[in-house]
């Protein structure tokens, strides 16, 4: 694959799988890997050793990994291991590094001709490595680091402060929440979006741990702060969802907003907020909304898929302006059941193909064992467009029980019904239908009818194959 690559690459390929094969113990693996880190091995070997320590390392590997956090070549590799190794030792090493990185020279030494554009001076490099360490503390959700991170919120380097905010959010305990809320109130505008991100992440974690009141405080702080639009929207979303039914007024505010982004957020949250109260509120809004918003609100209601929403969708499918009706049919296609059969059949007979065709498609996929029986039951007394629709749907659903009734429609006086029957028999018919049609052909004296039957027989014989020959031989 890569000709001429160094020993490190070969080592990488052979690595852990080889360890499995030779049944070398994880402990021995770890010792060997630590030795690599402490040796004069080429950089590539040290990097891959870090990666393997992510699987085989323990607290014993941490002293060998920790110094690498100060080396721009290996810091990211070392953190792969330190994030993965369980126990307190990696946490302690990361906290220690977070405290020391600002005051201690970091190891650069990468030849600029092969290093890319890594930060040039020591201070920038320190800050960048510090960001990595802070990120790892966040991933490990180290609660003992909260004070340290809170202090870093005031770091002169904005990237460091921003990383601290997000990591505090990931830790997500009340102490982290307090630090973030304080910072949001006083942070410069450039840092505020990162602190807001930390706040929302923190509030999400608090909510997951049933600390609803604390979460709401944070969400509210974000939605009321001077922030870029996206962050405010995230705060509003959290505020609504955390409040449950009490968040409905906020949701309605969004759904009534003339601001497109705010309205869009409402459409999203209208799908997320649980409870019948919420469905009823969205349904009320749907009924009174401007025409261009009604289809969008109905689609949101449709995704709620509860009984109240279903009733609204069914009414809309039966009787509403075309865009809303189309939206309703789309919803029924996705999530309708046998109760939608009647309304969809009516829509399937509509003269507008943008209504009838999707209705037919929805009917063809409508779940429920009794749908097929109902279709067969309705066929004998049907006529015109309804008969055509029933035949089409029965065929697409593969309802073989409908075939005897469909065979009779081959001679229907209505041309479109005949066409539907021919299409259905071509799709679904078998040996029995060949025999039926052969008998019908023998009896018929009407030229048009004979032509239609012959057309079906030709199509059917092509599909049924040799088994259709005996009945066809009976023809004169």
């Amino acid at each position, binding site marked *: 694959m890569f000709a001429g690559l160094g020993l490190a690459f070969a080592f*990488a390929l052979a690595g852990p799988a080889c360890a499995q094969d030779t049944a070398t113990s994880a402990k021995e693996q770890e010792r060997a890997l630590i030795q690599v880190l402490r040796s004069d091995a080429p950089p590539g070997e040290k990097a891959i050793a870090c990666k393997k320590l992510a699987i085989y390392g323990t607290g014993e590997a941490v002293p060998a990994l920790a110094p690498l956090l100060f080396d721009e070549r290996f810091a990211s590799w070392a953190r792969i291991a330190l994030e993965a190794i369980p126990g307190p030792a990696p946490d302690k090493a990361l906290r220690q590094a977070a405290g020391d990185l600002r005051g201690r020279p970091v190891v650069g030494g990468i*030849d600029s001709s092969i290093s890319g554009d890594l930060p040039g001076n020591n201070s920038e490099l320190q800050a960048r490595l510090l960001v*990595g360490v802070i*990120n790892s503390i966040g991933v490990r959700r180290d609660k003992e680091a909260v004070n340290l991170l809170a202090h870093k919120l005031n770091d002169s380097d904005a990237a460091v402060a921003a990383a601290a905010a*997000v990591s505090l959010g990931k830790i997500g305990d009340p102490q982290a929440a307090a630090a973030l809320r304080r910072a949001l109130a006083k942070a410069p505008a450039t840092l505020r979006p990162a602190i807001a991100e930390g706040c929302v992440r923190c509030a999400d974690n608090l909510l997951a741990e049933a600390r609803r009141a604390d979460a709401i405080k944070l969400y509210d702080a974000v939605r009321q702060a001077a922030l870029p*639009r996206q962050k405010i929207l995230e705060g509003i979303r*959290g505020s609504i969802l955390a409040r449950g039914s009490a968040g409905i007024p906020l949701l309605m505010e969004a759904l009534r907003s003339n601001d497109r982004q705010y309205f869009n957020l409402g459409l999203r949250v209208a799908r997320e907020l649980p409870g019948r109260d919420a469905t009823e509120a969205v349904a009320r809004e749907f009924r009174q909304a401007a025409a261009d918003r009604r289809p969008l609100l109905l689609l*949101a209601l449709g995704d709620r898929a509860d009984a109240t929403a279903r009733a609204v969708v069914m009414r809309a499918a039966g009787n509403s302006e075309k865009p809303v009706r189309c939206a309703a049919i789309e919803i029924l296609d996705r999530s309708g059941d046998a109760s939608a059969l009647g309304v969809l059949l009516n829509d399937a007979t509509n003269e507008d193909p943008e209504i009838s065709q999707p209705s037919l498609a929805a009917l063809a996929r409508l779940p429920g064992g009794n749908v097929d029986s109902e279709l067969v039951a309705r066929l004998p007394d049907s006529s015109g467009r309804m008969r055509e629709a029933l035949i089409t749907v029965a065929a*697409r659903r593969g309802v073989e029980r409908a075939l005897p009734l469909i065979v009779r429609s081959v001679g229907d006086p209505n041309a479109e019904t005949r066409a539907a029957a021919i299409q259905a028999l071509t799709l679904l018919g078998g040996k029995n239908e060949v025999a039926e049609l052969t008998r019908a052909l023998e009896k018929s004296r009407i030229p048009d009818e004979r032509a239609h039957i012959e057309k079906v027989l030709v199509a059917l014989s092509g599909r049924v194959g040799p088994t259709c020959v005996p009945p066809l031989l009976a023809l004169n």
Partner: protein
Amino acid sequence: MNDSPNAACKRSGNNLTRRRFLKSTLKAGGLLLAPQIVRGSVLGLNGTVPPSERIVLGGIGLGHRGTYDLSCFMGEPDVQFVAVCDVKAKRRNAIKQKADEKYANKDCATYRDLRDLLARNDIDAVLIATGPNWHATAATLAAEAGKDVYCEKPCSKNIAQSLQLRDTFRRTARVFQAGTQRRSLPNFMYAVDLARRGKLGKLQTLYAHPDGLATSMSGWAPPEPVPPKEEVDWDIYLGPAAWRPFNNKWLDGFNFEKGGGLTGGGCLEWGSHCVDLCQWANDADRTAPIEYEPQGDQLHARYANGVKLIMRDNGWIGLGSCPVRFEGDTGWVETGDDGDLVASAPALLANKSAKVSGYPANFHVRNFLDCVKSRAQTRANAEAACQSHITCHAANVALFLKRKVRFDPVNSEFIGDEQANRLRSEALREPWGL
């Protein structure tokens, strides 16, 4: 290489337009027409689209696949492409030329650093088609910046990234579509529909073809002189991947650090399509299998509902690349990129629609654009993509460890298996985070 844009164009006959597909599918009474009907008459897309109603799009990392995806976007009348970001000068200049020719102006802006593109308030959505190394990180940055995202697959490098991606798109309320376009192709949709609606009886076994079931590892290559930043920005190219010196052979993007380095391979590359379809067929968009076991050249997994998922290389009817097969206790169906469907009984195929071969992405792109307007979940939304990617990553962990692993999809962790659990995530290089 799968999903080659040229191959996709050729195999779809180059003439396949959405309008043609819609027309033929309408005639055949095909699948899922309603969303497209709704789009036309409901969402304000009747012929010309006023500028205020257009979705303003930016692109990040547009190489071969990205260029193809972009052509699908730019074929939609309600899309205005305004900016491209790529670490490679040749690529960003080529995309700019393409966009400027299309709009007969010089307005397409170019960026080397994605943060600069994402800082633009006028951009509504981004197409991300970088290498897999960047997908989750770039998508997260975009969502945090308030952009909706169409992101090529594989979308994540490990289980933790899959979860973070899902959580980010929940938290930010942005729309996400994974570039798993087979979720919007009629033959795959039809087969999945048969499984989901019980037409095959009780589902028993799902087969996927993640070609190249083996783990691979990236690593460290000998240093070479680094090109000027304006030509190739190596630092940004490396992005969240652990640092290593420049080597030209890493630059293909497509394979670089896929699957986080320790675990990668076809399981993720193809599995993000075919395993994803099996997940969908099993109504498992919010869960993942609970057991994974390598068996010869196959990987056997099992869901909590008893359904088996078998990833295999051989035993297919021959319906093109990326085949899937769904077996229930009363019937089965198999399909692939040729667009054909084969089933245990003709009646199962009575409702199938017009054949579309060559896995074009335009229907999937359209679904994304519709959802940007309606704020509905896309077909390959972040929740679904999260679980299908987790399934691929968990399978890869079993392949890498060469043994059976058990997984708890509720807590997204392996059960009593520290080694496996350590492979769930990997640190990102500074300053990047998720």
